[in-house]
């Protein structure tokens, strides 16, 4: 991957990044801080403008591209890692969830997805440990233990409502 840098007197700086397949990404950094991003189909092609962003926004986009950007999003799901691949997770149960209204035993959650429900939070009370007879109701928060894949499976049972 080659990056070409050149000065644009009176304007700013230009960076050309070679992408796969011969395409090039051209980033013009203006002295004013504005960034313009262009794409070239190949080294000889004319540039097509994709977008322009302000200095602040450009830095933000840059950190996302870098993978360094993280901003906690308000969700009702908290993630705690027990070991390498085992998590304790909190999931909200919605009206739409397939298992809403079933008992834990009937829903055969452990057989189907391999996670264990270790507690059910309902309003102010905490049912722990829940029994196979405990009914899962909409509005409950389930505290579960399982590995990453199983947690993902369980999310599907819940109707994918609680985030990825």
């Amino acid at each position, binding site marked *: 991957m080659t990056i*070409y840098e*050149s*000065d*644009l*007197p*009176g*304007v700013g700086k*230009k960076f*050309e990044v070679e992408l796969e397949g011969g395409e090039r990404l*051209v980033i*013009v950094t203006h*002295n*004013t*801080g504005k960034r*313009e991003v*262009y794409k*070239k189909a190949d*080294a*000889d092609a*004319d*540039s*097509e*403008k994709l977008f322009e962003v302000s200095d602040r926004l450009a830095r933000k986009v840059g950190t996302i591209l870098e993978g360094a950007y993280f901003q906690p999003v308000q969700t009702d799901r908290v993630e705690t890692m027990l070991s390498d691949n085992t998590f304790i997770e909190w999931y909200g149960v919605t009206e739409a969830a397939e298992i809403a209204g079933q008992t834990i035993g009937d829903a055969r959650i452990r057989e189907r997805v391999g996670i264990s429900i270790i507690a059910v939070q309902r309003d102010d009370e905490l049912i722990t440990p829940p029994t196979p007879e405990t009914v899962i109701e909409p509005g409950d928060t389930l505290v579960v233990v399982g590995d990453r894949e199983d947690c993902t499976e369980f999310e599907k049972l819940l109707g994918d409502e609680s985030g990825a």
Partner: protein
Amino acid sequence: MATETTLIDLGILFAAVGLAGLLANRINQSVIPFYIVIGMILSPYVLGRVDFPALLGDGAIPHGSELALVETDFIYVGAELGIVLLLFFLGLEFNLDRLIAAKKKIGTAGTWDLGINFGIGFALGWLLFGEFLAAFLTAGIVYISSSAIITKSLIDLGWIANDESNPMLGTLVYEDLFIAVYLAIASALVFGGGDVGEALGQIGIAVGFILGLLLLVYFGTAWFQRSLETDSHEFIVLRALGITVLVSGAALALGVSEAVAAFFVGMAFSSTDHVHDLENLLEPVRDTFAAVFFFWIGMITDPTLFYDVLWIIAAAVLFTTPTKLISGYIGGRVYDLDERRSLRVGLGMVTRGEFSLIIASLALAGAGTGLTEGVANDLYAFAVGYVLFMSILGTTLMQYSDRIEAAVVPVLESRSEPSPQPGDD
């Protein structure tokens, strides 16, 4: 020169310029010719000659001469401030290290540009006016492309991300540096009586002043850096204006070009950390007074004079459009660009603008000293007409470059070997 400007006059000026800018923007043209034309329309030469009472048969409407804006001290000084700020910005964005880093390519492309265009301009001026100084000024007027219009068009058209932007901006840097030196010599010649021998004293003062400024730039960076160490925008603007306008004014008082002094002050600031702030904060100030400058240029132009210099303008357009196309094309080839992009460089460099007008105002200032009244007025009218035409022609050529390329490139390619791949640096 009248001495009074009322607030309403200024209101009319800015409203007119604002509307002219709006119109230019609507039809995708550069604002500069529109500012000049609106200045012309509101001048005593156009509006001032319209006899409304006779035309409309109504005595209640004042005669045009009562409505026209006249050149006052205030507008004149505002225009001067426009020149100072334009050149200050040129210096501010001028980076000597950059020039040195790319000196081989910029030097080659720029020298071709200078040799071809300045040469033809000088020859043309000599043939038309038959004297050295007028020829020298004509050469400058036709040589210098418009940094402001070309840079803006590059960004608007998205060419800035293409390879053709490098030779174009590089050549502009070369031109800008040349014009700073040129203005110093030209103003010394104009005020020194037009004769090189008699002007030696003036040139001596000019060179001394510039050397002093260069030393200031070289040794004074730390001071310039400290001079703007403040978090207050207000203080930055006022101090920067204080330093720039004071130095430029002092230069003018000594008979040295204020524009050149402003250029060097800008250059002194270019190596401090304040460049970014200065550009952001002073840009609106520059644009305000630059608009006054262009308006003033139009306002003191008598359009009937165009009639006398029409054939001079025609000759200049006829000869100096192709020369820029050729020198731009050569510049593109120096940067290893292909036929199509080299042609684009040529199309882009045709636009002439603000600096040609600064030279024109210099010629006018020299009427009666270095130049005869007649020659000075002819030169001035020629320059304004020429810039009006070339700024519109240049931006139009850039906008329709696709069609021109489609027609011309096959011809160029059939006449030369396959071109090398465009290089990057």
